[in-house]
């Protein structure tokens, strides 16, 4: 299995890769799956969803993918939100989704060729119930137990590490 392109989530003024596919749950519940064209072995589902969290609610705001036209074996067209949610071209509230969203963050610790198998320094875990965010947890993957940190402290630690590296490099330049 090939490592798959993640979804994209805009959350707290940052863009994250999202290793969860809430739209697949929608297709499961409706029993209808649009005929997305698989354009790459790294994108078996045939689309990339763009998501945003506004006031603790999960919204789908875009979709990148191609739909098979059905009239000819060689034709396809770009998918839009309205193809899946008629009457909602710009934003869809993901009320059907209950589960955990995983947002990997920081340096990659281990590469796994399986779907979303790679591990990173941190995982921001967002619990969602019927489209509403109920809790968030930061999981640090370098320690065996779950540890709670605030996102701001994690960012500070990473930025200070990067600043330290930059200082060391500059110091080397002057040697």
């Amino acid at each position, binding site marked *: 299995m*090939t490592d798959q*392109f993640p979804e994209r989530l805009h959350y707290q003024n940052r863009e994250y890769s999202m290793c969860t596919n809430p739209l697949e*749950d*929608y297709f*499961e*519940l*409706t*029993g209808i799956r649009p005929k997305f*064209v*698989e*354009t*790459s*072995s*790294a994108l078996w589902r045939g689309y990339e969803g763009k998501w945003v969290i*506004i*006031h603790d*609610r999960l*919204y789908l705001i875009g979709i990148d993918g*191609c739909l*098979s*036209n059905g009239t000819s*074996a*060689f*034709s*396809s067209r770009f998918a839009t939100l309205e193809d899946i*949610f008629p*009457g*909602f071209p710009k*934003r*869809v*509230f993901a*009320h*059907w989704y*209950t*589960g955990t969203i995983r947002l990997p963050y920081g340096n990659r610790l281990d590469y796994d060729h399986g779907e979303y198998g790679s591990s990173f320094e941190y995982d921001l875990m967002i619990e969602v119930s019927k489209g509403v965010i109920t809790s968030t947890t930061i999981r640090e993957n370098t320690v065996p137990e779950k540890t709670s940190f605030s996102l701001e402290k994690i960012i500070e630690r990473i930025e200070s590490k990067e600043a330290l590296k930059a200082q060391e490099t500059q110091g080397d330049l002057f040697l």
Partner: protein
Amino acid sequence: MIYFYSYLALGFLTLVILYTTHRIREPRKHSSTLKALFHSSPRHRIEWKERLLESIVIPLTALFVVVVWPYALYKYLVILYMNFNPRPKSSDEEFSVDVAHLIEELSINEIESRERVYDPLGSVPDLPFGHLNSTWNTFLHKAEAYDAIWSFEAHWKPRWGSTVHKVGYALVNQKKHQPGAFFLTLNNETWPSES
């Protein structure tokens, strides 16, 4: 020698036929715009192993078909036959609502009033079950005489994969007390640490 060349020629012809039918049956997977998009994306990296695999596997497969075309043709016909005559799924591969999963009987009005979805940004239809409304209506049309609607909840373990938490509503024949068609509102895969 002429027979050997004829054999290889038939093998090459078989390769051309198989490739052509495959291209006709499968939709075009790459558009020029998308190819450019993916190739320009910094996230798109083709591992050298994949490149090596593609440069070896495809020519080897073509050579295999040309040399062993009777077997390749036989396998292709078997696959075609299976596509047109799929094996019916066994009962443990598909979920069905059991009497033990049923919770309570409800009227349509009760269900629709409690399953109204609210969104302050107006990104959901003001209908029962929101974006799942049409699926709900399709489910209601399946109701027959003596059918009542019950809510249900189940933790279903398929043959492959982890347990799936399913919640929804099912049509139950009141005379036989037998659940039938169902409508899902939750279909959540749970992992061993969560169940």
